[in-house]
């Protein structure tokens, strides 16, 4: 695809993609890469300095920080990705229906989304977590519930924009079924834009999930999670402030990588993409 060609020229975007992929792979192979069990406590070696066997030292319960960071990828990053995928799936499905079918069904979906969107997303998340109670599943559901309406609207307007294209009219006239047109023509066309939105939002979801875990509303101890690790670090700030560094940096790195990749994707897919501007940027 020519998108890939253009993207390859952007060194920083490739770097971001590389970072994200390596983090994801590390998370997948966590049991092989982590030096210790993230849940294994050993009070005798609490607050240990960085050493060969404990590269980042240990926390207040003697658990290996590096291992907790690595396993934390599974919680923080994977859960965010799952959240994003579900949000997009729901948003795209409803958006395609609302945009393509219009009429009562389309209008109904649209009005419902408007209503949901009048709720600010932070409030929506708190409301849902409030009702369902703390817990990581509830946090994921809350995040999905707060964002799917936005995606539905966005997809719907993209569909409206694209379904006016001539080749769609032609397909309709030629007698192809609605479902076929939806899947074969409209979906690939909007996929690019959806990808950009999704990448940009992944960072936001990661921040949200770790924030809720930080408050104690998400992951429950002792599951390793970056936000939760910061919560624990907060309590022993006066004794061992260095514990605050690693989880925060981890969040920063992956969110920055997602944001950067999203920005680059958007610049690449934008028809107003200006090679001169790109030249000036580098």
């Amino acid at each position, binding site marked *: 695809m020519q998108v890939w060609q253009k993207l390859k020229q952007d060194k920083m975007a490739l770097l971001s993609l590389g970072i994200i992929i390596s983090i994801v792979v590390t998370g997948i192979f966590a049991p092989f890469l982590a030096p210790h069990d993230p849940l294994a406590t050993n009070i005798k070696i609490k607050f240990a300095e960085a050493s060969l066997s404990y590269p980042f030292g240990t926390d207040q319960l003697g658990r290996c920080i590096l291992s907790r960071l690595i396993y934390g990828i599974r919680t923080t990053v994977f859960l965010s990705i799952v959240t994003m995928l579900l949000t997009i799936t729901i948003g795209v499905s409803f958006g395609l229906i609302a945009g393509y079918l219009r009429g009562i069904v389309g209008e109904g979906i649209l009005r419902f989304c408007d*209503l949901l969107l*009048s*709720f*600010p997303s*932070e*409030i929506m998340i*708190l*409301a*849902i*977590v*409030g*009702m*369902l*109670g*703390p817990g990581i599943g509830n946090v994921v559901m809350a995040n999905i519930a707060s964002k799917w309406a936005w995606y539905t609207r966005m997809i719907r307007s993209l569909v409206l924009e694209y379904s006016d294209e001539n080749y769609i009219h032609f397909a309709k006239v030629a007698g192809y079924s609605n479902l076929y047109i939806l899947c074969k023509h409209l979906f690939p066309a909007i996929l690019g834009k959806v990808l950009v939105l999704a990448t940009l939002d992944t*960072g936001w979801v990661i*921040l949200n999930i*770790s*924030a809720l875990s*930080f*408050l*104690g*509303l998400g992951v429950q101890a002792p599951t390793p999670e970056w*936000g939760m690790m*910061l919560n624990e*670090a*907060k309590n022993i*700030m*006066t004794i061992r*402030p260095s514990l*605050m560094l690693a*989880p*925060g940096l981890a*969040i*920063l790195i992956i*969110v*920055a990588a997602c*944001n*950067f990749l999203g920005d680059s994707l958007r610049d690449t897919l934008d028809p107003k993409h200006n090679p001169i501007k790109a030249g000036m940027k580098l």
Partner: protein
Amino acid sequence: MMVAERWFMRNYMIKRIIWILPMLVGISFFAFVLITLSPSDPAEVALRVNEIVPTPEAIVSMREHLGLDKPFFTRYVEWILAVIQGDFGNSYVNNKPVFQEFMMALPATLYLSVVALIFIIFVSVPIGVLCAVYEGSIGDIFVRAFIFLATAMPSFWVGLLLIWLFSVQWGLVPTSGMQASNSVILPSFILAQTYIATYIRLIRNNMIENKQKNYVLYAKARGLKKRIIYKHIFRNSLTEVLTALGMSIPKLIAGSVIVENIFAWPGVGRLCVSAIFNRDFPIIQAYVLMMAVLFVVCNLIVDIYSALLDPRLRQAE
């Protein structure tokens, strides 16, 4: 404003205000329905929180006490009527009126938000303008890199680091609570931090976009001084900034949840989070409703003053 415009503005305002009513009904309905989503029985929760054993008889009597045995719409209507009069019910935890708890906590949050707003305006506007004026300079590049990082940093992490630096290490400000006069500085700055980055970018991009416009070219062609041209550019960028600022006020109030948690600030955010832990549904419900209403009202105000500010919007419809 000319007569025709005044008439149009009045119609626009009336239309917008009328449209708010179904929105408010929808929001209140949603807030009410929210509780029914909960997998736990509010009566059981209320009992458990008060450390009463939830025997079947106790649950039944608690349900009666809370009015949960009445049909759905009756409860909704009763609730709405009560809410309009300011009665949000009582907290499950300490049985005090929710409204009272809320009103006690609200000033603290408002105080925090106002100071944060001041930070936002006085930090982001000068920096944003300077970045636009000196576009491409080292300072501009540095600020843009900083903004990029700032939007990726979790605010609670920044908060912790700053507390450690300013409070624990240097002892300049207290670590928590609202007592000292300077205790508001750190929390409000951290609350403002994400918005500062966003606003610097907004102002800078807006002004740079305006710099390319035709009226700037003509102003230069007329030989107007740079200072005056920038005044024009700034004034044009202002609408979008003010609109965004207006919407940020409710966001600041809602977003204070994390900051209040870190600093043990006695505001509505902290109230809500502890209510979530305690499963104190009336408080959660009141928080959701009040915040949503606040958002909708702010949205309305922002729409109206945007129309007032931009002469073109007055004729839009």
